[in-house]
């Protein structure tokens, strides 16, 4: 396609570089420096897509992120939906098509990289336009640590889209020199293509940097495509500029209808004439610059339609010089056109009502209804806004600690004023910080702004009808008629109006439509706009991809993985792993043809009849040291720990102050003043925190210190009647006889010079030894144990077998068989609750009436009568009924199944359950609904295997 709308020279594009791209299947060409929108406009293409609800043709209505209309889907090089043609920088090979309001996510994973960076600065300046650059220079020259972020590809802000001059030269020269100076300051971080999209507490700002998007398929794969900057700033200067606001009139949504400033930007920045025959409709002076500049570039400007009764003298003369007719006191009431706009209806305005309209032919209709300062970040910081009648816009109404607004974002609408305001606000930020000497850099001289007339506030031109083609939010197809319906329905709050009409909920979050909706609603209700206000500005300022927010925290890096020292051995042996907290633990080791059930039955039988080995390294381990270590443990465990002898081990239970069990485990007394506390895998961090909390906040006088040694010590239970043979073979210097090394004691030894600790602890009821060794040597020791066990058929087993073996013995898993409402007595562990100690955490709660209730749920065993059904864990247990049918709802619940397995030892399935008054029901039959049937189960004691405890000594 030809670039018939490209100017012969000018603009900030590289005309020597041609970029080929495809839009809607058609080939186009553009230049480096173009956006997709500017390249399409250069080829004369305005129409982008049809609208979401009404299917009306829509085009490009602005030059940057405020465009409510031109949404596209990128197809190549990687699918990405819902981008604005105005913000997609053009690259070679780009393929895209227009979107009717909704996109499509890629059906392949995004292979690009995303990451995050932190920055801590004295002053963060958002926006590198004239005000932002002046603020950044002021702060940088004083030696402050400065971050300057700007969403465009290059610095300059509004200067990029104008022909302004500074110190007699093009403004771009001053911008370039400012950028060079900032780069020379070592403490300045200057990021372009970086949008500060959210402002949070205490100077915390999130900014999205698009690092390689503009390179398309040529982007280096090793570089993060986008980066989220997490910036903590002591002072923030919001110099985010202003968005032009349209005026609403009938059929104001056709392609070819554009904000006047947008057309000026397309001309000056991209060398593109947005049309050949233009009508300019304005309520203020700013659009005259667009009319004059476009006329100078060869666009025939058929009329400037100024709603104000009088046009500004300076601009009248400029228009007269170019033969541009100016119709003051007039408005555009509607448009004609097949797809693109073909004519504007212009009518005189009398007493606020338009008179008879006359069509004026045009293929471009530029609109300006004034400017909305971009107060988004200020508003996110909970800054309040006020409506400034003279400016016709909402402005910051207060000074916030640490967040200041400068330039046109603060309502300063001329270049010299923006420069001065940026310097003033930058200096004020420095003064607040007391960083360096507030410098006052000389500012470049801007040309005098022509004397002008104040703007007129005009939200809409009445269309004489119901307003159903007067679009307020183009992306949502929401009109003045929708606002009238909202007002008619009694809605008064703009928050409600927004949700009723959906105005301001699209990709642009109401950058052009939000204040219009407030203004029109106020008119409809007959109240001042200050009374309606705006809706809340929320992050993000512009859309942010979830991939960018996720950064590197995806896939395997989503959550840290913890593995034991023997992990690779487990992998090599074909273990199936399960996640226990962040740990990867072997669940079972299937042999060829085995499913989990078969593998677990085999592992259980081998362990109970011969010997098994488990990697128990994930058990929490806390080293408790100090003269008062025993005092602390006595206060935190329900049983007595101070009487434990050095060399011995004791099982203990910990409760909260409410008397409910929070953890259990064994305690080894290593010395008079030193204990090793073992916790559950899941409770390791929680219990260390719990102990620390008491030591620090209640008993700081105790001389005791706590340290986690979970990862330092690997732990391997060797379990089963043959375990003594294995341990004896590996540790020949230890007398492993029951007399010399009885149950619940520990012994230190060495293996090849490496210290090893052995403990007679059993979580299965079998003869068992736990082997503790420094994780550095763990794999070697594990392999020695396996080697020594080979003659005995040693079987590695995983967590599933561990669970079955412990459940057969009625040993609860805290957090599985308990849920925070279970006392030691409920678990049948009254024996682990000291009656001698005057107090310990939880003791006083045991005597509360609720804890004395005989109908409390108690841990019992369940045996399905059919000897076949494995009850699903979590199943409810219901009241016995003679007729075998469920009683009418609500069905009386007795409790629930907490653990359920198939037992090799018992030759049948069994379960543990919490049952109301359970111990009194032993011998009863209760029922468990499974699927559609009621399964009868016998209530038993919780210890189903070896209730006499005959096996633990081998």
């Amino acid at each position: 396609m030809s670039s018939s709308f490209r100017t012969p020279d000018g603009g900030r594009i590289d005309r020597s570089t041609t970029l080929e791209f495809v839009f809607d299947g058609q080939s186009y060409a553009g230049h480096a420096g173009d956006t997709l929108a500017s390249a399409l406009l250069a080829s004369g293409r305005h129409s982008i897509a049809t609208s979401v609800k009404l299917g009306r043709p829509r085009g490009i209505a602005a030059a940057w992120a405020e465009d409510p209309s031109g949404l596209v889907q990128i197809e190549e090089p990687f699918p990405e939906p819902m981008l604005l043609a105005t913000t997609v920088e053009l690259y070679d090979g780009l393929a895209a098509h227009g979107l009717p309001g909704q996109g499509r996510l890629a059906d392949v994973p995004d292979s690009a990289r995303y990451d995050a960076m932190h920055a801590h600065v004295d002053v963060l300046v958002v926006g590198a336009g004239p005000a932002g650059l002046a603020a950044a220079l002021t702060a940088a020259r004083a030696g402050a640590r400065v971050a300057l972020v700007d969403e465009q590809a290059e610095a300059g802000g509004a200067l990029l889209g104008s022909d302004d001059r500074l110190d007699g030269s093009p403004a771009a020269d001053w911008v370039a020199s400012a950028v060079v100076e900032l780069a020379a300051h070592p403490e300045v971080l200057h990021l372009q293509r970086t949008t500060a999209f959210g402002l949070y507490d205490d100077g915390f700002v999130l900014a999205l940097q698009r690092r390689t998007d503009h390179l398309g398929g040529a982007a280096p794969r090793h570089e993060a495509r986008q980066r989220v900057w997490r910036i903590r700033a002591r002072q923030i200067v919001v110099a985010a500029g202003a968005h032009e606001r349209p005026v609403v009139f009938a059929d104001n949504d056709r392609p070819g209808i554009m904000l006047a400033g947008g057309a000026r930007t397309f001309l000056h920045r991209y060398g593109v004439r947005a049309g050949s025959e233009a009508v300019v409709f304005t309520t203020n002076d700013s659009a005259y610059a667009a009319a004059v500049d476009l006329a100078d570039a060869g666009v025939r400007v058929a009329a400037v339609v100024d709603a104000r009764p009088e046009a500004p003298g300076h601009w009248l003369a400029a228009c007269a010089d170019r033969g541009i007719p100016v119709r003051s006191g007039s408005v555009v009431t509607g448009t004609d056109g097949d797809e693109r706009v073909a004519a504007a209806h212009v009518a005189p305005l009398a007493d606020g009502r338009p008179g008879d309209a006359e069509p004026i032919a045009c293929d471009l209709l530029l609109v300006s209804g004034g400017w909305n300062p971009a107060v988004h970040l200020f508003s996110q910081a909970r800054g309040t806004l006020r409506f400034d009648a003279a400016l016709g816009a909402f402005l910051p109404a207060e000074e916030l600690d640490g967040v200041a607004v400068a330039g046109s974002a603060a309502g300063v609408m001329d270049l010299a004023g923006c420069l001065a305001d940026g310097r003033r606000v930058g200096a004020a930020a420095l003064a607040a910080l007391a960083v360096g000497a507030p410098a006052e850099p000389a500012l470049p001289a801007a040309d005098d702004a022509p004397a002008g007339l104040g703007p007129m506030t005009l939200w809409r031109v009445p269309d004489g009808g119901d307003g159903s083609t007067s679009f307020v939010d183009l992306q949502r197809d929401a009109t003045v008629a929708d606002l009238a319906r909202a007002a008619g329905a009694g809605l008064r709050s703009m928050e409600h109006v927004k949700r009723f009409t959906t105005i301001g909920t699209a990709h642009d979050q109401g950058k052009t439509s939000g204040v219009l909706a407030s203004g029109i609603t106020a008119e409809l209700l007959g109240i001042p706009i200050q009374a309606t206000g705006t809706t809340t500005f929320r992050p993000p300022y512009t859309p942010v991809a979830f991939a960018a927010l996720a950064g590197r925290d995806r896939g395997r890096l989503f959550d840290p993985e913890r593995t034991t020292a023997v992990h690779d051995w487990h992998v090599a042996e074909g273990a199936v792993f399960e996640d226990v907290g962040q740990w990867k633990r072997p669940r079972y080791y299937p042999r060829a043809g085995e499913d989990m059930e078969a593998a677990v039955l085999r592992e259980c039988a081998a362990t109970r009849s011969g010997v098994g080995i488990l990697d128990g390294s994930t058990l929490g381990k806390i080293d408790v040291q100090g003269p008062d270590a025993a005092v602390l443990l006595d206060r935190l465990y329900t049983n007595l720990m101070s009487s434990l002898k050095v060399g011995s081990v004791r099982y203990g239970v910990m409760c909260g102050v409410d008397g409910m069990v929070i953890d259990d485990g064994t305690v080894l007394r290593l010395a008079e003043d030193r204990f090793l506390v073992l916790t559950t895998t899941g409770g390791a961090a929680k219990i260390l925190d719990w102990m620390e909390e008491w030591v620090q906040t209640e008993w700081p006088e105790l001389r005791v210190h706590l340290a986690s040694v979970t990862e330092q010590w690997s732990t391997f239970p060797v379990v089963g009647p043959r375990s003594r043979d294995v341990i004896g073979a590996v540790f020949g210097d230890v007398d492993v006889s029951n007399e010399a090394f009885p149950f619940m004691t520990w012994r230190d030894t060495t293996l090849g010079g490496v210290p090893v600790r052995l403990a007679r602890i059993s979580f299965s009821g079998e003869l068992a030894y736990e082997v503790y060794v420094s994780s550095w040597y763990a794999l070697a020791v594990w392999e020695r144990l396996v080697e020594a066990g080979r003659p005995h058929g040693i079987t590695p087993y995983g967590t599933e077998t561990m669970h079955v073996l412990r459940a057969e013995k009625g040993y609860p898993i805290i957090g599985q068989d308990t849920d925070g409402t279970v006392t030691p007595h409920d678990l049948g562990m009254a024996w682990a609750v000291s009656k001698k100690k005057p107090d310990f955490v939880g003791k006083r709660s045991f005597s509360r009436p609720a804890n004395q209730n005989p109908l409390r749920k108690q841990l019992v065993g369940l045996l399905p009568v059919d000897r076949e059904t494995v009850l699903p864990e979590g199943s409810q247990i219901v009241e016995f009924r003679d007729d075998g049918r469920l009683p009418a709802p609500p069905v009386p619940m007795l409790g629930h199944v907490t653990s359920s397995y198939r037992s090799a030892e018992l030759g049948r399935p069994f379960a543990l359950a919490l049952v109301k008054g359970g111990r009194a029901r032993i011998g009863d039959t209760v029922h468990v609904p499974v699927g559609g049937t009621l399964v009868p189960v016998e209530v038993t004691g919780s210890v189903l295997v070896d209730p006499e405890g005959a096996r633990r000594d081998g």
Partner: protein
Amino acid sequence: MQLIECPWCGPREEVEFHYGGQAHVAYPEDPAALDDEQWAHYVFYRDNPKGRFAERWSHAAGCRRWFNAVRDTATYRFESVYHPDQPKPVIP
């Protein structure tokens, strides 16, 4: 994300901290001497004011030490941080 002043480490991001409920609720001297209601007040009852509230915080992902803070529950602003053994400060 707020910055919270740890009295030992200085200002750190809020995700490093763990909330510990109302401060200055001491473990009773002799729990056995309390009746059920008094004990229940210790275990279950805490103030829930709008405005200044003395709270316990722990710098869980930092120095792992506990401290107290007076925080405004309406504005989230931390008005004072102090050591656990110090009395609640008087803030004008």
